[in-house]
């Protein structure tokens, strides 16, 4: 595995390998000295051209726990704001002998573009509406903690599917691990041809949740509502929001995931976010472990 650009082209074996490696990494995060010398002397550059604090911090912590040096490049302070092209910036970063580039951009395909042009491993930290592979991997890791295996499980993903990279990566990851995935959204937020990914599109919670072992709630961006995909927050929360009543549609011991940050009262009721079925904080903890595993596996020299 030379780069981590997406789950779409990963084999089940490669996914299992990351998840297995993450176990050991999680244990390190639970020690008092949360550090191992494995990536000592290596440089991880976080190229975050779309603003993000949480994912960037997660990758930074992951790098530092492996004793790597972590450098952050954002759009505002970068040469891109001086009209340098992305391709040129990438070449410059590679020329500085970075060992890994972790890339996030608001445009799909940017990590692929960089991977074609630089000689170092590239990790996709989220590209536009395309994929967010480490999120899917940490979601799978979190589910396995509670469920053991995903084989035969039913997962319902609810939210603005058409604009969600988390949805796409989750779909690929969970189906490769043997789960049945349903997506639920109002028609305005359901992308064309989503069946091609092997999922069943649903247009209500009543259709999607019965029998679900897992409910994944996606963040609704308020800006999109203004973009006339949906009339109001109140109506969205009333029809696609996860609260005690809608959660009861799923299996009694169903667990709840959310990639964060959560909009309390919009896609997820405040009490549900803090209740027992929610694994939202575990996701954050596991996120560091999974990202450590990814950095470890990709810096092996390529295979």
């Amino acid at each position: 595995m030379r780069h981590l650009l997406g789950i779409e082209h990963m084999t089940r074996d490669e996914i299992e390998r990351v998840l297995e490696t993450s176990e050991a990494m999680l244990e390190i995060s639970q020690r008092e000295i949360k550090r191992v010398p494995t990536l000592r002397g290596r440089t991880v550059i976080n190229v975050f051209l779309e603003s993000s604090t949480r994912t960037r911090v997660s990758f930074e912590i992951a790098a530092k726990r492996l004793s790597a040096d972590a450098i952050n490049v954002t759009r505002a302070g970068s040469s891109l704001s001086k009209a340098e092209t992305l391709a040129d910036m990438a070449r410059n970063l590679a020329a500085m002998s970075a060992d890994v580039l972790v890339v996030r951009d608001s445009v799909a395909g940017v990590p692929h573009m960089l991977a074609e042009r630089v000689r170092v491993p590239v990790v996709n930290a989220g590209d536009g509406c395309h994929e967010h592979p480490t999120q899917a991997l940490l979601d799978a890791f979190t589910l396995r903690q509670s469920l053991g295996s995903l084989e035969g499980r039913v997962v319902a993903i609810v939210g603005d599917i058409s604009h969600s990279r988390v949805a796409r990566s989750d779909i690929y990851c969970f189906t490769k691990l043997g789960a049945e995935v349903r997506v639920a959204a109002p028609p305005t937020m359901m992308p064309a041809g989503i069946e091609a990914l092997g999922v069943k599109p649903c247009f209500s919670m009543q259709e999607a949740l019965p029998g679900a072992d897992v409910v994944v709630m996606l963040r609704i961006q308020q800006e999109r509502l203004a973009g006339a995909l949906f009339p109001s927050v109140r109506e969205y929360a009333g029809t696609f929001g996860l609260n005690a009543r809608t959660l009861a549609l799923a299996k009694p011991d169903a667990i709840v995931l959310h990639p964060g940050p959560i909009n309390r009262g919009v896609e997820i009721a405040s009490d549900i976010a803090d209740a027992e079925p929610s694994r939202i904080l575990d996701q954050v903890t596991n996120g560091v472990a999974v990202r450590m595993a990814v950095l470890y596996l990709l810096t092996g020299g390529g295979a």
Partner: protein
Amino acid sequence: MSNPGQPVQPARAVDRESERELAQGRVVLDAAGIQRATTRIAHEILEREADVSDLVIVAIVRGGEPVAKLVSAQLEQLSKQTIPLGALDITLYRDDVVARGVRPMPRPTRMPFSVDGKRVVLVDDVMFTGRTIRAAMDAVLDFGRPASIQVATLVDRGHRELPIKVDFVGKNIPTARAERVVLRKRADGELEVVIV
């Protein structure tokens, strides 16, 4: 996945040796010999310091685990006390450049106790170049500040590359560098050490 089997890496106790190797290999320590060796190691540990109140045994994952189990069982029988037993995976502390670029799989470490002020005895199956123990010392020191670290090994096969000494050894076995020394479990469940 994992161990390409370079000389610098510790030989390990495996249930899944290749068919070819199972057919080969001369046994240098059989089950009875292993039992005697681990018993003697336990005695020597107690001789060095009879007070076991701050003694902890740390097995090097994975080869040292069956050895540590035997040693710690003996120690508990002899001293009539429970002695904390941990398992330390040193994959992430290794100093060797990865051979063909495939990262070895790190296993979980279980150290459910503090090492501060303790007498730590690291236990491995085969002592060879000393690099494994060096990595294990780095790891233990990340967990805290032990009072002392000592090393026990079932087999010492020589060819040290670092100034690491063994405190308690089960058996010294001279070997050629190219040979492999493996602790393995037979089909009938018995342990044995072979040279391949």
